[in-house]
């Protein structure tokens, strides 16, 4: 039974190389179903288009079932609070991109059964930019964006 659950988890999230690293570290006991299967190279992409392609979401369709709470004007680009929720049934992954950041892909979360596809986080924004969310459900990708004005950027200087 335990094995079946693990298999299911691996199918949902794919098998990860980070798994062996974390298990090797002793931080996680073997048998724990951890499989952080993210494409790290997407985090090094320098354009939103490249990042979207690398996370496999280039053809994402716009969905009104993604909710983004973010300030219209962020005074401090170093700390921009966001809240993201997907009402798309079966959402297993949420990704957030800030189009004009030096590295647009900001974060991704995988949600297993029991975890609601919603989170709050704080991001750095270099300048006024489109904030883009991608929700992945059953192998399909949905997206929604929101414009956030930034008064003082929070990436370089």
């Amino acid at each position, binding site marked *: 039974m335990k094995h079946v*659950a693990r298999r299911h*988890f691996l199918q949902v*999230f794919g098998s990860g190389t*980070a798994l062996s*690293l*974390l298990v090797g*570290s002793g*931080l*996680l*006991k073997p048998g*724990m*179903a*951890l*499989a*952080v299967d*993210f494409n*790290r190279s997407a*985090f090094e992409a320098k354009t939103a288009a490249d990042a979207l392609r690398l996370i496999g979401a280039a053809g994402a369709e716009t969905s009104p079932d993604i909710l983004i709470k973010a300030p219209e004007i962020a005074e401090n680009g*170093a*700390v*921009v609070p966001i*809240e993201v929720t997907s009402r798309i049934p079966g959402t297993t992954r949420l990704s957030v991109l*800030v189009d004009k*950041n*030096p*590295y*647009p*892909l*900001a*974060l*991704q*979360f*995988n*949600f*297993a*059964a*029991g*975890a*609601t596809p*919603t*989170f*709050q*986080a*704080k*991001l*750095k*924004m270099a300048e006024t930019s489109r904030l883009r969310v991608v929700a992945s459900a059953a192998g399909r990708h949905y997206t929604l964006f929101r414009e956030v004005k930034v008064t003082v950027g*929070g*990436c*370089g*200087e």
Partner: protein
Amino acid sequence: MSDPIKFRATVKGSTGEVRVLMPHPMESGLRRAPSGQLIPARHITSVVLSLNGRPVIEGALGSAVSANPLFAFQLEGVKAGDQLAVAWQDNTGQRGNAETVFSAA
């Protein structure tokens, strides 16, 4: 860095609210020190949240997450006393972890 993780988990009905603050500089590698030298990148790359030993949320982070990352999550079907663990790892191989239990709100 050595500051402990702040980890709070409360349950209302069967819905659990989780807040976790992980002290970490989240250096992007793009900033320069006053000397003009680039400050090397040092940021959390992965986060795992486990409920009673089962990973329920896994995150991959880039350098655009603010310093001292604070996240809030929601879990369903939890009860007071359920165990919650969080573990992170950064791009330099450093790690941190913490545990807590759900308490009634």
